[in-house]
């Protein structure tokens, strides 16, 4: 568990979501929205970003090179 984050926030942090964006995503979840997250290498994330852009997402944010300390 990452200090200061909820269980969900810790899970998001462990897959490379920066802490400043976690609050925004938790807010979106509380407003009955859905998060679809893809993580992996740069190429995989770029591919997933292109696919998600065609699916009518309200917001798409790519986080690259986030160093996560467990």
């Amino acid at each position, binding site marked *: 568990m990452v200090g200061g984050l909820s269980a969900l926030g810790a899970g998001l942090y462990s897959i490379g979501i920066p802490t400043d964006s976690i609050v925004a995503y938790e807010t979106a979840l509380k407003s009955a929205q859905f*998060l*679809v997250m*893809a993580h992996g*290498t740069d190429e*995989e994330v770029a591919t997933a970003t292109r696919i998600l852009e065609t*699916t009518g997402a309200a917001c*798409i*944010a790519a986080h690259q090179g*986030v160093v996560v*300390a467990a």
Partner: protein
Amino acid sequence: MAPRSGRWPTAERHSPQGLARGASLRGQAPHLALPSWHPLSGMALTARGGSRWGPSASDTMSESERTWCHRSGQRVRALKRPGPRHRTHGLSPPALIAGHRRVTAPSLDSALLACGQCIGDVSRSCSIGMGFAETTNNRVTERHGTASVAVEDKLAVLPPKTREEHMPWHQDTQRETMAEHNAVVGIYTTHTEAEAAVKALQQAGFNMQKLSIVGKDAHTEAHVVGYYNAGDRMQFWGTLGTFWGWLGGLLVGGGPLCYPRSWSRHRARPAGGRARWGAGRGCGGGRAECAGRRVVQYWHPHG
């Protein structure tokens, strides 16, 4: 010119010529140079400045290369000379550490025998009265009935292992704990759009193990339900509705992970065939974690 008296002449001892001679003869730093003559008998010492590792390296020894032996409390000298390992493999050279020990025996022969194998020959010895002998690494002092051999061993000490060499698993741990992650997050207002996004990713051949979806339960607004994949792990929070059933099967590659209510929520249970009992059913709150083949269940505060 070596004095014949037992004490060093102060002028001779502190003069640059005397220091230089002592350093060159004994192969040590000038300020640590032993006298090139015996302090009592005045006999000149003969020392061969060299060893089997080549010529004496202590001529170039500086103050920083001198250290203390914490085990014996003696001052030892680390002679940084490139060894065969350095020349052949290009690795850092082994350090030559001079270890001092003294062996006392009733006779010179027994003392030399007791001190073990030494390098070089006894160049000078005296069996009557007080005398000494100087070898390459031995200093022999003999009295009537006793002989003392001070041995200066030059030990080749390999350089200390690096952190990766000493703990090879630590590098993997470090890579795991300080990994660089890339992620993309899409926010969808309806579950239909989220479902379409997941299907699009699936049709594009995206690895479903690297896909996560989080959202509120469509039936119970109080609980946040989500599938979370991080490598081989999968975590599930909250209740599992029918809508999320197919997502669970999609993300974990099998059936969605669910547990019967009769199972204890406080005890971790191993994975088994019953771990996938509740596929597609609405189950009680619980948090399941699938780590490889091991599945454990935790109590959920909102369950």
